């Protein structure tokens, strides 16, 4: 089987805020259909990496090349921001807003976009809540609604920032299973998580960021055999 063309290549990236580097020397690549998990301690630059890939902020140095055919949109699941909590919006309005990247200058959603939104709400089990107010749903349903929105926008890949943050163990398991299902159906996933044990079950590749440098990048099996994983698991075990 020919190796697929990489979707995203990061070369020697240095990330940080206001000239201060948080992490440097990041090099990795993601191919179509991959499920990459980005791990590391709090403050190691995981979320910053996602934001840099999304061009929400510029890298201090290094290069990001986004390949692939005529697709220009990422589906992003951010960590919840405060402003969303009292926002009057129905689940349907929010999920549909994921289709806006496909609309271009058209002022209204077309039939295809509306159907895509309904389909993704069904996939993630939030269809029965489509008309409900977003802020009145449980945390688990809110995360799923936001994931449905991200899926509408994910023409290139899904970028998930702590998809299970704030969820109870049951909802966390369901969330990881859902994401694995989406990946199995062909969606490329890049996920940030500090929950090593739970996320390792499904991923194909691992990028482990340590303080200031890359500790590991490669396939999951190699990661499990490396010392980094044991150290991480020990740290994770100690935390739990």
């Amino acid at each position, binding site marked *: 089987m020919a190796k697929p063309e990489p979707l995203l290549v990061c070369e020697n990236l240095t990330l940080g805020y206001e000239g201060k580097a948080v992490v440097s020397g990041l090099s990795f690549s993601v191919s179509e259909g991959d499920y990459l998990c980005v791990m590391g301690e709090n403050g190691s630059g995981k979320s910053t990496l996602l934001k840099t890939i*999304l061009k929400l902020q510029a890298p201090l140095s290094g290069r990001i090349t986004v390949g692939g055919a005529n697709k220009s949109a990422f589906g992003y699941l951010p960590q919840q921001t405060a402003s969303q909590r009292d926002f009057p919006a129905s689940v349907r*309005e*929010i999920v549909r807003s994921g289709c806006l990247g496909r609309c271009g200058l058209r002022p209204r*959603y077309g039939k295809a976009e509306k159907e895509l939104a309904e389909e993704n709400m069904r996939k993630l089990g939030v269809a029965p809540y489509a008309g409900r107010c977003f802020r009145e749903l449980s945390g688990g349903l809110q995360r799923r609604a936001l994931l449905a929105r991200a899926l509408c*926008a994910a023409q290139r890949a899904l970028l998930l920032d702590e998809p299970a943050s704030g969820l109870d163990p049951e909802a966390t398991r369901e969330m990881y299973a859902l994401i694995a299902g989406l990946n199995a159906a062909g969606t490329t996933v890049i996920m940030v998580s500090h929950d090593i044990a739970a996320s390792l079950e499904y991923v194909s590749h691992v990028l482990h960021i340590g303080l200031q440098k890359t500790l590991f990048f490669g396939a999951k099996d190699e990661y499990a055999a490396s010392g980094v994983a044991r150290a991480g698991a020990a740290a994770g075990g100690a935390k739990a």
Partner: protein
Amino acid sequence: MTEVLYKLASYITGHAFVRHALIVTVLVALCASLLGVTLVLKRFSFIGDGLSHVAFGAAAVAAALNLTNNMLLVLPFTVMCAILLLRVGRHSKIKGDAALALCSVSALGIGYLIMNRFSVSSNVSGDVCSSLFGSTSILTLSAGDVWLCAALSFAVIAVFLLFYHKIFAVTFDEDFAVAAGVPAKTYNLILAVATAVVIVFAMRLVGALLVSALVVFPALSAMRVFKSFKSVTVCSVVVAVVCAVFGILFSIAAGTPVGSTIVAVDIAGFLVLGATGFIVRRFRPS
């Protein structure tokens, strides 16, 4: 009661300036409430107040320079400030509310200073008072003013309808919108320009200090009862127009100042919808 209604009807049919005032009030209230929903949710509730102070400062400079048409200076300057606040605000070191306070206080202070030192008018404090609280200038509008206001209002409404979904996305979650390929900066720019235009015109209706009410009250009232962006927007427009019409008719009938009467009616509307929301939540079968 019928006597009052009869009197109002005769005012409206008999006097062009009353009709002008009514048309302009409805248009300005409509535009302010459309943008108000987004501004309140973006945590820019005080932008009406802040930008109107900026406009006051610019008007003071225009007066000192003896410009015959001060809009030539006021509008570009206010638009510039709005762009600075709404576009740059999010990632700058001085955040939204602080940046707004900074602009507003500076413009007010410098504006009054300039007015005091260089004004050609003999009644400086009267000028300041009327530009801050709104005078009866709404009752002295010319047909030209009405046409200009109508044109700008329709432009603002058209922009809002055309970009409704994008404005929703950029307000709800700007980072996501950028990631999904929506040029959020462009839409924030459009929003900033529309906001500045509406505020500069609304200033002449209720005066600088009361512009905030037109932006904030209808949106907040609607949010007491409704829970989707669309229903909140529609309700906010309805509340704004009804309150503005009631307010202006009441002020004509009772001879009270137009601006403060409209705000009083807005407060009443807020209380009524607040109570409605409370009752609905309390007794809704769930």
